[in-house]
């Protein structure tokens, strides 16, 4: 296994011209795209549009009334009672949340309409809305009890979606962020001196998030997008280069010599996988680091962020490496020119649908769906999600899928590898 890897890696490494092209071309392309079309992907909320149905099963007036009535039963001073009653009206939870949903920042990517439950479900099924936010029955009362009296567990709004998407994830983050912040502030308020303080601090909470960011969600700049997308697509080319080098090995009969040593095809393929993995990773690392230093791509990010980025890159490069094994087997099955053509077509196709050449949101819906199933598409989403949300749970699924793809591809390459007498 090791001799094959060493040989393949050296063959790559010695080809200085090709190395230089492989490392510099993507950087040039990123620069050109980034400066030529700076606003194409900047601020993606402008292009995101999440239609949300808001279903209110709760009667807010009634809840408020019952909260006020419950205050009378408590052993409180009259002024406390009346201050809490005023706070309750001001902090009416469903109103605050609606206010948040209709705030300028959130309106940029969410449009909310109020519907009854039945209509909302129908529209969700028809795809007219992508998610439903439901205020469950008793929401107002239970939330006010939690916020103002620190009683009970409170209640969460429910978010229903047919399928997960970046927008739905954003909305979920938004709702969770809202709840957490309010609950936290209330808790701090209680700890530091009573209900009045609580109501004050709660009242300070405006719409969550600042101008550029929505809580837990970073915008992707066009340079970031191009760097990730171009980095991904150029890795795919490494898989093809490997296979073309294998075709040369066959043409120049070194492959025959290898067969004569009685080496197993798996050892041969593993050399291809190993060297492709290293070359793809080297290339990607180079692209990311150079672009980061030239463009200040990911300012003020944590070590954890970089580790996550590296993790996605590692897994993706492994899938590229396994793709190179498939291509190598193909190259042995076909004439060299045919193999080159077939590989180019495959790469162009998965490159396009996977969003490596143009941002995916400009593509028709069904192509976007197909694109999600290409390794480069998966990897690009994983990269983008990591940059936007930095949450391991979000990228775990695409990474596992990439690993599954890799194993399947390696299996396929072994099956495709020509048997003796047909090389």
């Amino acid at each position, binding site marked *: 296994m090791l*001799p094959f890897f060493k040989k393949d890696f*050296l*063959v790559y490494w010695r080809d200085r011209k090709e190395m230089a092209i492989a490392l510099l071309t993507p950087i040039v392309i990123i620069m050109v795209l980034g400066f030529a079309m700076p606003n194409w992907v900047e601020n993606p909320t402008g292009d995101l549009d999440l239609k949300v149905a808001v279903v209110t099963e709760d009667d807010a007036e009634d809840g408020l009334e019952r909260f006020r009535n419950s205050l009378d039963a408590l052993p409180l001073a009259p002024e406390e009672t009346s201050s809490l009653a005023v706070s309750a009206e001001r902090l009416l939870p469903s109103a605050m949340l609606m206010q948040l949903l209709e705030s300028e920042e959130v309106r940029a990517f969410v449009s909310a309409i109020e519907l009854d439950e039945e209509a909302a479900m129908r529209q969700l099924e028809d795809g007219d809305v992508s998610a439903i936010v439901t205020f469950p029955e008793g929401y107002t009362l239970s939330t006010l009890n939690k916020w103002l009296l620190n009683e009970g567990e409170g209640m969460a709004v429910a978010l229903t979606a047919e399928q997960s998407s970046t927008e739905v994830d954003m909305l979920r983050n938004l709702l969770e962020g809202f709840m957490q912040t309010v609950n936290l502030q209330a808790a701090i308020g209680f700890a530091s001196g009573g209900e009045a303080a609580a109501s004050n601090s709660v009242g300070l909470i405006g719409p969550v998030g600042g101008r550029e960011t929505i809580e837990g969600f970073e915008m992707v700049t066009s340079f970031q997008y191009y760097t990730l997308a171009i980095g991904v697509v150029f890795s795919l080319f490494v898989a093809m280069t490997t296979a073309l080098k294998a075709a040369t090995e066959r043409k*120049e*009969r070194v492959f025959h*010599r290898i067969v*004569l040593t009685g080496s197993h095809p798996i050892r041969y393929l593993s050399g291809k996988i190993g060297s492709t993995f290293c070359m793809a990773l080297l290339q990607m690392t180079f692209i990311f680091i150079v672009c980061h230093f030239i463009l200040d791509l990911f300012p003020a990010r944590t070590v954890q962020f970089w580790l996550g980025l590296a993790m996605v890159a590692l897994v993706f490069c492994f899938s590229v490496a396994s793709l190179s094994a498939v291509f190598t087997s193909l190259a042995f099955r076909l004439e060299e020119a045919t193999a080159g053509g077939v590989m180019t077509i495959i790469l162009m196709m998965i490159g396009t649908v996977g969003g490596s050449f143009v941002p995916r949101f400009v593509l028709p819906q069904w192509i976007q769906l197909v694109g999600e199933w290409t390794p480069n598409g998966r990897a690009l989403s994983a990269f983008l999600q990591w940059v936007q949300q930095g949450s391991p749970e979000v990228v775990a699924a695409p990474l596992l899928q990439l690993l599954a793809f890799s194993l399947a591809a390696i299996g396929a390459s072994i099956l495709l590898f020509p048997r*003796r007498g047909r*090389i």
Partner: protein
Amino acid sequence: MLETVELRKEFKGKTAVDDVSLYLNKGESVGLLGPNGAGKSTTISMISSLVKPTKGDVRLHGRSVIKQPQDIRKVLGVVPQEIALYEELSAYENLTFFGRLYKLKGAALESKIQETLEMVGLRERQKELIKTFSGGMKRRINIAAALLHDPEIVIMDEPTVGIDPQSRTHILDTVRLLNREKGTTVLYTSHYMEEVEQLCNRMYIMDHGRIIASGTHEELQRILSGEDTLLIQLNAPSQGLIQELQQLEPVRRAEETDNGLKLIVTKQSNILTAVVQAAERQRVQIINIHVHTPSLEDVFLHLTGRTLRD
């Protein structure tokens, strides 16, 4: 120790190798001669298990190796007709790679590499990249790479094609060394009769996929023992003379050469007078007549009607 039994290979209806049976005894050096497209390389590929025969068998010590290629691959060293090396790697790196595939390691590998490099006379240049080597040097490394695992049988497919005299001498010396001093069995393929004459005890002559003659140098020459070759130098070319001579009964073949013509005639025929008379009739002057005993090249010409090289 190694034999092929009625080996045949067809490519899309075209027969490249046609019922070839040959054998190699231990320690022998055997030549395989034939013009372009005779089927030499295809035969070698079948012996070395790279190509499946359409029909026939390859046997090592009497056991078929078609189904068990591993057996023969271990004892066989094949020098392919093409230069099968990594151009971007150095000679040393190439040999290390192939040596490791033969499961050689560490000091054993290192000493084997140095030994084979010494044998082909390129020890000093081992660190240089193959692509910087001359054609002859590449050929020598091409041979070295087939010798790393001490094969009992070495098959060389035209190892001296298109190279400088110095490299050629080196290669011929290497083959002699392998065969005479190490007792390696050699199958040597070539277009060059004199190489085979020098190196081999026995030879097979192949044409159009078939073996058309085989035997030792002397045995083959005896094929032509009933013939003489006349080289006639003329003052001017004359088609008329060739045509006239072809009519004569003892003349087997007459053809034009650079400065006259060449006749193959039955021995002891009184041909010279007839030639002189014909030349007078055609008004050409004979400058020189040379009678020579047939060479193996002539044997080949006799058998195939072609020369070994175009």
